[in-house]
């Protein structure tokens, strides 16, 4: 990337940027705000994590081995699936499994459709497209899954009485769970819907900004942003629906019983 159309950031420039934060840390120490420690830990973590990811990506981009790229994609999906569950307040048996299956299936489906059908990337595993698209889709699906799961379990615990009243008056498990499922889906989709609502007005999306910084024409960057938002919305809806329906099957037994005892508070 010798003749890149953007300014390459050198080490000194990085240090200068870090100075911006140093000023704040100094202020926090002087005024005893207690923010200093968190800021330092956060900044160091960010630097180390990004540097490592950069090295791995650089390596993958150079080798361009499909096996490596697919392994990287699987690893990303796995981490996202686990992280989605770790953000929830309650657990039930098999919750990690549910999350892993739905996030992988929905993210691979949507990203696959995008790289092969919409963008027609050749070869389909070209990491320049596959990895960033998958990463963004996963990040958003993760939020949808954790919010949806949380709301579903919360609803089943809080409305247990009403659910069981319906069940004992002849409701099937689906009829009794329907409202909880609806609410869980809505909750999982809220961040994505809100993001689309305000996009371009209140916030300039990070990916679009990045492309513009890298020298892309703003209108081209906008088109990419639109495609990625459609992908994100589709994938989040699919993943939230999938994980909520799997949770429903775990929390409501085939003989129409609410399995409250399966829900456990996180230690």
């Amino acid at each position, binding site marked *: 990337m010798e003749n890149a159309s953007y300014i390459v950031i050198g080490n000194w420039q990085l240090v200068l940027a870090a100075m911006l934060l140093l000023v704040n840390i100094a202020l926090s120490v002087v005024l005893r705000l207690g923010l200093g420690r968190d800021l330092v830990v956060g900044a160091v973590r960010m630097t180390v994590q990004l540097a490592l990811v950069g090295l791995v990506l650089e390596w993958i981009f150079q080798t361009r081995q499909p096996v490596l790229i697919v392994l990287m994609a699987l690893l990303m999906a796995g981490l996202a699936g686990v992280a989605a569950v770790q953000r929830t307040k309650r657990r039930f048996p098999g919750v990690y499994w549910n999350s892993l299956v739905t996030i992988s299936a929905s993210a691979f489906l949507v990203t696959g459709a995008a790289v092969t059908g919409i963008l027609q990337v050749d070869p389909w595993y070209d990491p320049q497209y596959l990895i960033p698209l998958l990463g963004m889709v996963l990040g958003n699906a993760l939020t949808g899954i954790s919010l949806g799961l949380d709301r579903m379990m919360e609803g089943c615990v809080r409305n247990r009485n009403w659910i069981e*009243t319906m069940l004992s*008056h*002849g409701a*099937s498990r689906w009829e009794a769970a329907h409202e909880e499922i609806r609410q869980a889906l809505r909750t999982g989709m809220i961040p994505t819907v809100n993001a689309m609502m305000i996009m371009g007005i209140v916030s300039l999306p990070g990916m679009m900004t990045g492309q513009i910084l890298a020298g892309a024409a703003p209108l081209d960057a906008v088109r990419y942003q639109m495609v990625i938002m459609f992908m994100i919305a589709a994938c989040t809806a699919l993943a939230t629906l999938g994980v909520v329906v799997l949770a429903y099957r775990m929390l409501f037994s085939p*003989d*129409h*019983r609410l399995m409250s005892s399966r829900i456990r508070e996180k230690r």
Partner: protein
Amino acid sequence: MLEVRDLVRFIEGRSIWPDLSFSLRPGERVALRGPSGSGKTLLMRALVGLDAVDGGDIRFRDRALADWDIPEYRRLVRYIPQDAAFLSGTVRQSIELFFSFRANRDLQPDNRELARFLDILRLPETFLDKTADFLSGGEKQMVAVMRSLLLKPEILLLDEPTSNLDEAMVGRVESLIEDWMDGDRQRCFVWTSHDSRQLDRLTERSIELRPHPTEV
């Protein structure tokens, strides 16, 4: 009509209701008696399949519980919990919602029947347009019983159905149940209450639950 044989459930390693067998026959009025913690509520929940059991048989109309379509079964064998819940809309919406379930699809909300029930409970018709959130505990119990009866059950399992009612209202709920019993000779009920005089007055025989021997 309903037969229970050797029903077993373990909680924390001990069996609640040791050696429990009984049957309910058409037209019977049965008291379920036992000290607090003897598992009366758990037994009623088990009878309608809201809790799993660890052994034994429940048969209704000579068919095992496992062979019934459970929503269909629960339409006929109706458990009314002590603290039955409501939709956060009007009383009428809470009643009508239950008619939308597939198992109740052949039933219609019967306004004449409803008017008669309100009459027995001496509640004004405007009561149906009250928001369920603002009902008192006693009013909720009355509506819960009325709502259940509109769905035409065959067996009623009543868990302390009058625990939040004052004396005058207790009598009205009792007459509502008696009125329901008079409607069909096949019907029967099981009733739990802390008031043993109420049980003596309403029922003709008892199922006794004993506390576990190690606890006595």
